[in-house]
Structures are given as C-alpha cells and as structure tokens.
C-alpha cells in the first residue's frame, strides 16, 4: 500500500460567492489526460454550479460525472466521508483530488481525512477571499469566526472579485492579509484564472518545465538539478525564500534515501520515494523571488557542507 506515492489533496476554501467554483472550473478545463495533464477528481457540492459545457461531459452516473478530458467530478451531497470512501476506491486512483469545501467548512477538518488515509496526503489549502465582500464577511455576526479560520488555515491566499472592489478596498485587504499572515503567499485572481501548477503544484517528475521564465499571471519558475543535498539543509534554504515561493517540488535523494519534497504555500513536506530519484527540482514563485543565478547559487551544495 505504501509503495505508490500518496494522492495529493487540495482543499479550496472560501465563503459562498468567493469564486471557488470559477477556480475549479478553470483548473478542470486546463488539464486531464487527454491534454497530457493529470487526472483530477473534483469533489463539489453542486454539479449545477460547475457550468461544464455539455460536450465536455462524457458520462453521468449517480453522483459522478466523467469529463471528456479524463477528469471526474463527484457531488458530495453533504456526506464527505462517503464521498472520500468512493473516490479512494477508484482504480487507478486519481492523480490529484480537489475538494470544493462548503462555505462554512473548516478546511483543517477536511485535511484530517488526508492525515488518516494511508493513500492520501494534504497538498494544500487554498482560501479565496472576496475583495468586494471582505468588509461584510469579516464582521458577519454569525460567520466572522468561521471566515477568520478559513483564512488562517490557508497555505495560499487568493484575493478574488478584485474587479468588483474599489482600489482602496483591494489595497487595504492585501495589506491586512500580508500583515496577519506574513508567511503565506498571496495572489490576486480574476474569473478563476490561475495557473494549475500554482494551485496544485507540479504533476510528475516527467513534466519538465522551461528552466526559467515567466508563466501566466506574473508568476516565475525556476528549475534545476540538486545532488545529494541533505534534506534538512534544503528545507532551511527554502525557508529563506518565503513568502515569494508558491510551490516547489523535487524528486530527490540524500543519505537517507530517495524522497519527494513538496512545498505548498509556506508548508513543506516530504515523503519516501520508491524509485530512482532524478534530482529534478522546480520552484514557482512571484517575480520578487531571487533570480535564476541567485537560486542556482543557493541550491548548489557548498563545498564545506
């Protein structure tokens, strides 16, 4: 059971109307095996809101919709445990699971499922914050505490509905979030558009991106090969890059053996890797991240070490 890599789980959190479904729509249409991408299984509250083009739907069966691109959507129907059981019975297992959490869900509760599932790991919690409604949501008499928890749980914060907010609101919100959650990467999102690798991380070792350059929406990417750097040293170095690094992934080796390193938001995790490690390492960050030369230098093992 332990041989295969665990399936990553990404939780999309945020209030009703914060743009969770738009983001999910965007992610689902950017990928799928038929596009050479990953097989995503998305857990949603409501198929109707997904607004998937009819020609994209390959098959509808009970609470599942198979998309033509190879992805699958499952409706949760207020029974998350049952839905996870069903999803984890799929053969083969999906490459990635995304859950669109309900507007009042505590994402850390959902994350617990990944913690106790032998074949799942938490990749990250993405929380959408509605720029136009933040002043209402943060003072809601019944929901303000819930709202604060969703934001506090995030590994990646996305400010949505910026087109509906005035410039002052938007700047104030950015400042507030940056001050409260200094280690958490923050980006703005319009109409759900966000590069899939920023939200879900890089798919597989074989997906070799361009070594350096801009990707859409003002994100930059750096790739390199690391040789035998002790993982503690590598993690310490990555820590110095926060909060400008959104994602990192490496299939690496050190004296303890082969492992996969994931960085989602400020959160770094490693898991054992059963096959040969390529040493391949990719970082996606914001333009403020150190440049390629600086990164190459940072991740070259010093002679003294």
């Amino acid at each position: 059971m332990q041989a295969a890599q665990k399936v990553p789980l990404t939780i999309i959190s945020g209030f009703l109307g914060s743009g969770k479904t738009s983001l999910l729509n965007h992610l689902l249409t950017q990928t799928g095996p038929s596009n050479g991408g990953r097989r995503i299984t998305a857990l949603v509250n409501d198929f109707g809101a997904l607004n998937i083009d009819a020609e994209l739907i390959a098959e509808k069966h009970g609470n599942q919709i198979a998309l033509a691109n190879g992805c699958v959507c499952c409706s949760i129907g207020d029974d998350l445990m049952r839905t996870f059981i069903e999803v984890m019975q799929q053969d083969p297992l999906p490459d990635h699971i995304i859950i669109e959490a309900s507007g009042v869900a505590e994402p850390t509760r959902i994350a617990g499922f990944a913690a106790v599932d032998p074949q799942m790991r938490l990749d990250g919690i993405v929380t959408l914050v509605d720029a136009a409604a933040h002043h209402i949501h943060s003072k809601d008499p019944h929901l303000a505490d819930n709202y604060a928890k969703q934001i506090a749980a995030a590994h990646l914060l996305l400010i949505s509905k910026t087109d509906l907010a005035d410039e002052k609101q938007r700047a104030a919100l950015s400042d507030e979030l940056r001050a409260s959650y200094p280690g958490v990467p923050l980006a703005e999102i319009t109409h759900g558009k966000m590069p899939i690798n920023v939200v879900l991380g890089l798919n597989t070792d074989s997906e070799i991106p361009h070594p350096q350059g801009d990707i859409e929406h003002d994100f930059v990417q750096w790739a390199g090969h690391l040789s035998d750097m002790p993982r503690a040293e590598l993690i310490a170095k990555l820590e110095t890059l926060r909060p400008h690094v959104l994602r990192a992934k490496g299939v690496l080796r050190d004296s303890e053996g082969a492992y996969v390193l994931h960085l989602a938001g400020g959160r770094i995790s490693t898991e054992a890797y059963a096959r040969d490690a390529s040493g391949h390492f990719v970082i996606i960050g914001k333009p403020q991240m150190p440049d390629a030369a600086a990164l190459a230098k940072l991740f070259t093992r010093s002679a003294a070490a």
Partner: protein
Amino acid sequence: MGDKVSIIYQAKSIRTMNPHLPHATHIAVRDGHILAVGTEQDIDGWQEAWGPLELNADFAERSLLPGFIEGHSHMMEGMFWDYHYIGFYDREGPDGTVWPGLKSIDEVVAKLKEIQAARSDKDTPLLAWGFDPIYFTDRRMNAADLDAVSMDCAVIVLHASLHILNANNFVMDAADVKGADNSEFIRRDENGQPTGEFLGQLGYYMAMRTTGINLLAIASSPETLVNFANVARQTGVTTATDLVNPMPEGSEKPMRDAVDADDFPMRLVVAFQGNSKEPEEAVARMQELQESNSDKLRFSIIKMVADGSIQGFSARLKWPHYYNGAENGLWYIEPERLGDYLKAYTKAGMQVHVHTNGDECTEVALDKIEEALREHPWPDHRHTLQHCQMATRSHFKRMKALGVGVNLFSNHLYYWGDAHINITMGPERAARLDDAGGALAEGVPLAIHSDAPVTALAPLFTAWCAVNRLSSGGVTLGNGTQNITVEQALYAITMGAAYSLKMENEVGSLETGKRADIAILAEDPIEVGAQGLKDISVIGTMVGGHVHLNQGRD
C-alpha cells in the same frame, strides 16, 4: 361486519392519552385498529352490530399505554449488534441478550482479551462499541491498552458518543498517521505521538480505510433495520424515526420490503436528508420517495443539520460561547443555504426538522424559518427544532408565535448533565438545558428523545430524565421550573411525538378508530411515579394488532 371476531383485551389499567377518557380497563382491537376503549360494559354494546368480542386476559395484570414514539433516533442503533458491546451500563441486544456493563478501562481490556482469545479468525478486525470514557476519570484509553488485546489485527473501540474512537498501533501503522500533518482530530501525548484516540468522522474513515469494513453499507442494510426495530420493541416503541437518511436512488424498495413484513415490529418514519441534493432536485426526490409510503413506512419529513453537538464543542453558541473557553462551534451548513432549503421545502409543503444544538443556531434557524414563512405562508407547517438544547424562554415564545415545535434531547440531562455544568455551559446556563417545562409553559408542542444510538433508546428513561432532570453524577439541573410532570412526559413520548410527525390522528393515543399500537407494561407509570419511571419492565408491544412479546420479562 358480520360475525368476525374482535379481540377485547383486559388490562389492570389503560392510560389512553385521550382527554375524553384518560383511564380505562378494556380495549377492543379489530383489523389492526382500535374498535373501542372503556370498561367491559362500555364496549359490550359493540357486539350487536359488529359481531362477537373475544376476551383476552393475557394482559389482565398489565398496564397498557399508547405505543411509544421515538421522534429522534437513527437506524444505526441496529448496526453494532454484530460487534461487541463494552459500555458502562448493561445493555440489551435485539435478541434479548443482556451485555453486562464494564466498570473500568481494565475491565474493558480484559473483556476484549477474552473476546480475542475466543475468536477463531484472529487476524480479522476486532470491533467493539459503547465505550464511555466519562465514567473513567483517572485516565484515558490509549493504543497500548488495545495493543495488549492484539498487535496482529486491527482493534477498534467506538465510543458511546459516536464522536470518538480508539485504535491500536496496528491500525495507526496501516493508516500511516505518525508522520502525518498535525490534525486537531488526532489526539497526541506530550511527546507529540498519537495516543490512539481519533475525533469526529476521521476515526471512522480511518477504520474503514484500514480494515475494509464498510460501516456505511452496514448502517443502511435491512439486517440493521431489523435489529433497530427489535431494540426499539423491547422498550415499548411502536413508531420510531430514522432521523436522517440520504436515501440514494433505489434504496426505498429494500427498506419497504423489510418494514412491511408482518414480523417487523414497528412503524418507521424516515427523514430525508434535506441537503443531500440541491433544493429543487431534493423536493422531487422526496415526492418520489413518498410513493413508497405504506401503513408502516413513511417518508414524511425532511431533516436539516445546522450545527454540531455541545459535548463535542461543535454547537454554535451565543456569546460568551463555551464555559471552558473553547472557541465557538461549527455551522454544518451555511445559514444562507439553510434558508434556501427551508424556502424550497415550505413552498412544496414539506415539513422540516432542523437539528440545532446551540442557542445561536436555534436563533438563526428561527430567522430562516420566519423568512421562509413570509414568502410561503403555511399555517400548519409544523417545522420542528430537534435537540434545541439551549433554547431560552424567548426562543420558545418565538417558536410558539411561528408555529414551530420542539423535540428536546432530554437524555442529555443524565448522560452529560455534569459535563454541561462543569465544562461546556457553566451552572447558570446548564439550568435551562433541554427545558421541557419552559417549552410547555410557553405553549410549544413538545416531544423528547434519545437520539439513539448516541444514548440508549428507551422512552420511559427519556421521560424519567425530563421529569427528574438528574445527572449521572447525582446533580439536579435547574430550579424546578424546567421539570415536567409524569403525565406531561408520558404525553410527550406518545401524542407529543406523534404530533411532531403529523401522525397524531393515527397513533399516539388509544381511542376508537386509531391504530392498535400499544405498549404493554408491567406497571402503571402514573402509579409508579417519577422515581421509578425508568425501571418499569416492558412486557411487549402491539403494532397494528400484532403482539410482540419480549422474552423473559415479568
């Protein structure tokens, strides 16, 4: 009419719950219904036109009441009886076997070792249930306790609350939890190691994912339903609820087959899980389900769950929230979406039962019901708040004004009363916990419940709780204004619950024309009085004229 025989049952006393004839000694039954109630002479007159009455004296020394109605239970009560009961109190299984209570963690472990030693297939998962740590204050059960039972198979202990479970290291290794992210739902010791306790749904999920036992399938199987009915029967219940069921497509047929069988000893009201589909589809599904209604099976109510539980610190409370400083609880649905569902169901003329535990949640539910009624006025909607444990007198006043009923979780007073005084609510607020007296004083239709399997299903015990308000630690909750009388409590577990299910014209009292659903008791609860209510022996039940006797009762 002709010469068909009707049976006239003689009893020591009959408490009818019919205000026009509260007390009687004879009851005549015909075609599953009550032909007449009164004295032997009162009933005699029916013979002339309706044929012979045959006297049955089997219950001549017994007391008869309307069959009890459990307005908030779950068929899951029937699912665990294939596993091992290890609770604190003696508990009777569906076959009448009494499982003795275990009074310490050591006794529990010793019992589990004994079970393991007796098993032929020692590698299969060992599952036990009913463990209740509130009675063991010296320490908590940990993985080492269960490792002592076996290191070579999964050993899993479900708590009575169903909110927590314990696992041994075999399970934790299989789930690979040790390296996992910190989760507040995995209890850890001072060194950060998991102790073996898992909170909420996580434990169940882990148990299923590591053992392959599909508890979800077992929970909805016909065998579980039959076990549930047999447990209910032993406590005098003739109508019970399965108060939230997602009813996937096609599930109604096997359910109807099981319930309609003559030897299935009760009526079942199933509450459709209101948010299992989007509002319009859910209304359509409910209409489809109602085509499967029969004399014994009813799809007549919708259930919505709005918050969590008080003892789990997941109920939504008004400021200042929890006595011990725990942060406020959880919404299980967005208030806005609760409102959307209430509007859709009110428009469609479907009665909704809303689970609200904390007072903040009760208030929001009432706001949403009020909004729905403004859009879709419906004088006798009878929407009902379930649990509603922390309602104030002002909430009850509002409920009265809106036509909302209440079904209070009176068993909580006994099982968690001490915890509510000392940990969750503090003494002042704990006084109003499950305030049945307040509800009746304000004119709110009242039922009381067990929420089985969360607490043991036994309406006479629930009535005892509402009458005495005594905690398991021996403390009385409140100042007397919250207590109800024995008569009021008996009404709540019969007509009160029937009214909450809109079945008061069919069941809930013993009077001409109603269904012959009867609880057969060893003693008359009115004569026994407040103290002994919970100890009255239930001899059996009659459901639609069919008698179901409990074994070994006198």
